[in-house]
C-alpha cells in the first residue's frame, strides 16, 4: 500500500491516489453539508477580497471551492485524511488563497528592461521595488484601517460587536481568544457575530467605492 496522503507539488513526487485516500475523500465529500459549508466559508472570505477588487463573492466562492477540490484531486495541494478533515483542508486552502488575493490586489507591474546598463537598471529596480513594497505596505495598512473604521462606524452603539472588533484589532484570532479579550459569554458572542455578519453584508459596495477612490 502506498502512502496515504498526496505529496503534491512540494514533495515533487507524482501524486498517485490510493484506494484508502479516494474512499476518505468520497465519504467526506458526500456529507450533505460539505459543499454548502465550504462555499459559505469561501463566500465570506470573498467579501474580504471584495474590499480591494470588484467581484461577486458568491461566484468567487464557488470557483475557489471548485479549484481547491480539483487541485486536491490532482495532488497540487496535499491532503492527508489522517491529519485533517476534508472540510478543514478546503477551508485552510481557501483562507490562504483569499488572503493572497487580498494582498495581490496592491501589487504593481514592473517595466521590462532594455538598452545598455541593464545591471544598473536591475539595481535601480530592486531599490524601487523595496520602496514600492513599503508604499504598498503603507497603502494596505491604510486601506485595512479604513475598512475597519467603516465597520466600526456602522456598528456604533452595538457594544458587544464593538468589543469583538476591539478583540480582533488586539490580535485575537481564535474563538477562545475573542471570548477572553472581549469578555463575552458564548451566547453573547454568537449573537454579536450574527449581527456583525448581517452588518458587513450591507457594506461591501460602499467600502469598494471608498477603497478604490482616486488618490
Amino acid at each position: 500500500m502506498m502512502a496515504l496522503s498526496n505529496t503534491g507539488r512540494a514533495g515533487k513526487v507524482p501524486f498517485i491516489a490510493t484506494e484508502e485516500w479516494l474512499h476518505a475523500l468520497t465519504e467526506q465529500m458526500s456529507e450533505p453539508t460539505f459543499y454548502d459549508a465550504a462555499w459559505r466559508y469561501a463566500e465570506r472570505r470573498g467579501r474580504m477580497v471584495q474590499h480591494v477588487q470588484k467581484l461577486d463573492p458568491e461566484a468567487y466562492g464557488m470557483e475557489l471551492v471548485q479549484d481547491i477540490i480539483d487541485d486536491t484531486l490532482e495532488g497540487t495541494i496535499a491532503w492527508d485524511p489522517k491529519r485533517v478533515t476534508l472540510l478543514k483542508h478546503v477551508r485552510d486552502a481557501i483562507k490562504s488563497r483569499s488572503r493572497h488575493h487580498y494582498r495581490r490586489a496592491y501589487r504593481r507591474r514592473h517595466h521590462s528592461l532594455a538598452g545598455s546598463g541593464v545591471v544598473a537598471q536591475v539595481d535601480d529596480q530592486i531599490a524601487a521595488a523595496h520602496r514600492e513594497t513599503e508604499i504598498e505596505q503603507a497603502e494596505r495598512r491604510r486601506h485595512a484601517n479604513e475598512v475597519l473604521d467603516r465597520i466600526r462606524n456602522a456598528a456604533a452603539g452595538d457594544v458587544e460587536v464593538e468589543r469583538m472588533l476591539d478583540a480582533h484589532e488586539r490580535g485575537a484570532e481564535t474563538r477562545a481568544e475573542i471570548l477572553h479579550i472581549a469578555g463575552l459569554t458564548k451566547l453573547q458572542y454568537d449573537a454579536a457575530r450574527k449581527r456583525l455578519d448581517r452588518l458587513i453584508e450591507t457594506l461591501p459596495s460602499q467600502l469598494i467605492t471608498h477603497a478604490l477612490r482616486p488618490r
Partner: protein
Amino acid sequence: MMSAPDDDDDKPIDALDALYEDLALYASEHGTATPKDKEWAVRMRARTMDKLAAMRRNLVPDVEPIKARPIRPSLLAMTRDALLARFDEISHRMGGAVQVAHRHLKDLSDDDLRRVLETLETAPE
C-alpha cells in the same frame, strides 16, 4: 494564535483577516443552504464523483496477457502427419469429449496442431 505584540506592520490587515475568518467560520458552521446553493452542491458533487471514478479506474492494475506455455520438444519434433495421427488417437480414446472449433483440421497450421495437442494432453481428465 494571537499576533506578536510588536508585529505592528500588518496589524490592521491581520485584524481584518481575523474578522473575516471569524465570520467565514460562523457562516460555514451555522449557515443555511438556499435551493440555489443546494443545486450547485449537487452539480459539484456529481462533477467530483466523475473525476473520482476516473481516478479509481486508473487504480485497477493492468491485466497481464496470458502467455502460452512452451511446446514440448517431443511435439516440436513431430511432422504434420504424426501430429494428425496423434490427434486421431486422442480423439478416439476420449470419444465425444474432444471438440475442436475448426471444422477442418487442414485449416490449422502445424504449430496450431501442436498447441491443440499440448492442451489435450495436459488437460485434467
